[in-house]
């Protein structure tokens, strides 16, 4: 709760210091706020909050880990986007404020114990993003993306609300624990509950961007500025996946017979449609959007298993996926790839070996090549799912080979010898971000050793 308040106040301050048009000051304030929030979350269990506890946000150890990761991702994204903010100084404050407000929503989504808080968190998460996607006002694609995301998002929210209403009608409560007790006792209205749950499942698949509700992804990712794309691909996905997990795998666990079948199809389709769609793309962010659909498919494996370790696997997977995505988008920003062409990556690894190295490890991590974090994430997710869902695991491995082909093409493109005399320079902040990402990508496997 305290972390949430700190983040919110930092966001407000950021919004107003933006008026001074001093991006460095803004960055420092934001990072300080995030650091304080990080420390508060880290000491959550040892620390007595001065505020009243309304029991709507509770953080157990998994939720703490997820919220820490969300804060860390946001900090890295904010730092990585500094060069971009400086270019567009009139909007710096907007970005900082909106990113932090959105982070508040993400933390609500991770810690909720109550469907009210859940809905609030989802809206707080989404609305700043609708704004940020359309922040490039002169750009037609950005406006299109914003409108598309807003309308489809509003539609999904409506369906979600309908689902929540039906759920309330069936169980008589908004509280997750009470709902679970009712479900375990069997005293509920079956058809209301199942239909409500199905509606919620649809809305969730929309939010995480899984097939068959993935159509908004490529357009929105492409239209949004890189910063916002990175935020959507990491923090939003992380929060939505955790909420998905805690609602379905914990609260609705006993009804697994009903929703696992639907999820099974969503995962199987996501695994293939994402990568197959990405093969033909010429725009970089569109490609990332398609590959993120497939990666969502992997992440959803965590929901299939009732074992305790599945949430840990999801966390490791998201570490690998998040840092890789942030690194790739930071590189895309660093080469000022405004047209978003994949061809612009040609030879950058050869020109600038550091970028080449980061591209190499982040793409290989996405492809799931050991010993990078992406491998350990996929490995542990598949380990958990193996005993009950063997065929899905085999499908995942096949799709992983398609993905490897896709990422390998990018690696090869960025490492080709380039004799042209264009130069690439990274500023200090980008070096910092890429180094942090490299640590995350290379060292994630050691998490398993703890």
């Amino acid at each position, binding site marked *: 709760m305290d972390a949430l308040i700190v983040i919110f106040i930092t966001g407000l301050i950021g919004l107003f210091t933006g008026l001074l048009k001093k991006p460095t000051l803004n960055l420092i304030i934001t990072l300080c706020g995030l650091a304080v929030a990080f420390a508060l979350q880290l000491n959550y269990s040892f620390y007595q909050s001065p505020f009243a506890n309304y029991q709507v946000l509770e953080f157990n150890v998994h939720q703490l880990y997820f919220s820490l990761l969300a804060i860390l991702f946001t900090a890295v994204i904010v730092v990585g986007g500094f060069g971009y903010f400086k270019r567009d100084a009139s909007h710096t404050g907007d970005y900082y404020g909106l990113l932090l407000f959105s982070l508040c929503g993400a933390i609500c989504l991770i810690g909720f114990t109550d469907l009210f808080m859940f809905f609030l968190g989802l809206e707080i998460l989404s609305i700043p993003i609708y704004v940020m996607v359309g922040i490039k006002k002169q750009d037609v694609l950005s406006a299109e993306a914003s409108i598309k995301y807003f309308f489809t998002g509003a539609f999904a929210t409506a369906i979600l609300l309908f689902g929540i209403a039906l759920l309330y009608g069936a169980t008589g409560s908004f509280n997750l624990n009470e709902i679970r007790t009712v479900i375990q006792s069997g005293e509920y209205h079956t058809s209301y509950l199942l239909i409500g749950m199905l509606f919620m499942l649809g809305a969730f698949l929309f939010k995480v961007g899984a097939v068959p509700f993935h159509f908004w992804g490529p357009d929105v990712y492409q239209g949004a500025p890189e910063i916002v794309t990175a935020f959507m691909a990491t923090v939003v996905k992380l929060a939505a996946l955790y909420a998905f997990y805690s609602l379905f795998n914990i609260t609705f666990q006993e009804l697994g017979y009903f929703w696992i079948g639907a999820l099974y199809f969503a995962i199987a389709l996501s695994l293939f449609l994402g990568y197959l769609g990405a093969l033909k793309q010429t725009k970089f962010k569109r490609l990332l959007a398609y590959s993120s659909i497939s990666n969502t498919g992997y992440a959803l494996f965590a929901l299939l298993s009732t074992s305790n370790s599945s949430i840990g696997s999801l966390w490791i997977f998201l570490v690998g996926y998040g840092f890789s995505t942030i690194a790739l988008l930071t590189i895309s920003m660093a080469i000022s790839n405004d047209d978003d062409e994949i061809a612009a990556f040609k030879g950058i690894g050869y020109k600038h070996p550091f970028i080449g190295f980061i591209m190499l490890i982040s793409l290989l991590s996405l492809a799931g090549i050991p010993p990078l974090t992406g491998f350990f994430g996929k490995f542990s997710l598949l380990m958990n799912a193996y005993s009950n869902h063997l065929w899905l695991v085999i499908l995942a*491995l096949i799709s*992983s080979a398609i993905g490897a082909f896709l990422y390998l093409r990018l690696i090869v493109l960025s490492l080709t010898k380039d004799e042209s005399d264009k130069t690439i320079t990274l500023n200090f902040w980008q070096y910092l971000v890429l180094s942090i990402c490299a640590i995350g990508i290379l060292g994630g496997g050691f998490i398993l050793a703890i």
Partner: protein
Amino acid sequence: MGFDPLTQTVLSSSIDKMAFGLTLNVGYDSLGLVMIMLTNAIIPLILLSNWNRELAGNKLFTALVFFMQLGLLGVFTAQDGIMFYIFWEFTLLPIFLILYWFGAKENNKVLFKFFIYTLVGSLAMLLSFIALGINAESFAYQDLVNVQLSQKMACWVMSGFLLAFAIKIPLFPFHTWQPATYTSSPMAGTMLLSALMLKMALYGMMKWMLPLTSEGIEVMKWPVIILGAIGIVYGAVIAIKQNDIKTLFAFASISHLGLIAAGIMVFNTAAWSGAIIQIINHSLISIGLFLAADILEKRTGTRKLDELGGIAKIAPRFGFWFAAIVFAALSIPFSAGFIGEFILIKELFSFHALIGILAVSSLILGAVYMLRSYQLSMFGPPKLTSFQDLTWNETAVFVVLSISILMIGLFSSYIIDYTAPAIRVLTAITPSNQLIIE
């Protein structure tokens, strides 16, 4: 540190298991030690033969070769299934970059085929490891060996391993990546691939695949041995018709390795001793052959046999040492190949006479393609006016190779005795029928 071949040397062993039963067990038995010594002997030879060539001073290239060595040593020392898999995949990366940066131009298509092919095989192996690890206490080697599988399950698990190993070796229907990859890669890349990376797969069959899924051997023996036998004849026949000397050696390699793989699948101590001798021998001769092919290519600008000829007259030293390696590849008596192939063919013969006959054909057909390649390139009317003879480093490589092949041929009993304890342990794992997991 002394080494007793009768025991397992443990370099690191984790008492607490990590999440998902991963462990950090590292160690080697005498089989592993032989492979480690082979790796550490071959890498300097590769670098020495690369001396004075355009890549010799390239820091990136040398770093990648050492990364390759790291991966290989990891594969040979891993005592944990997932660690084995990690190092196995890790080796793919440096070799891919070597082939990509320093190989022929416009070889992307070939490289993609190579990478995806091997990756698909590795993913199947990962699935097999997961299938075993789910039922085991941990991924530690001994725990995986202790898992009892039903015969059907064991066959599935073994097929997963086999796909990975058959693609790397390569066995007959999975070999299509190999010739093009060999010809488009730089000399050192080809040497790394044929002398060390393929041996990883043969080692994997002996150390991991067969002991772990010993319940399925009786069923899987036949298909693999037949594929190996087809590979022996197929590789040799294709090699006879080749005009490109590097492609010729690539197909010869398919033929030789088919014999080793078939021998390993016979699954007894004698055949495995022969396989180990032949693994070492093949590493040595493939270095020699690809060095000779590269010398021809660099100094004449062509690899086509019909454009070469009469070089032995201009460059007698090269003619002599190339002949020495060719004779070693023919497995003449007193060479290491004689011992290795003799044991393997004898064991295949006692396995089934027809397979034995197919295996023997490797000797005859081998003589045809090897001597043909030597004759067409070195003898006949000279088509070139000048040909620079061997430099000191090339001579050194050929001398070291020839002497090692001769010494191993004369004193092969040392290697056989040395690896015997490990082989006895690995082949003694017999299927039992308790606690079967479907």
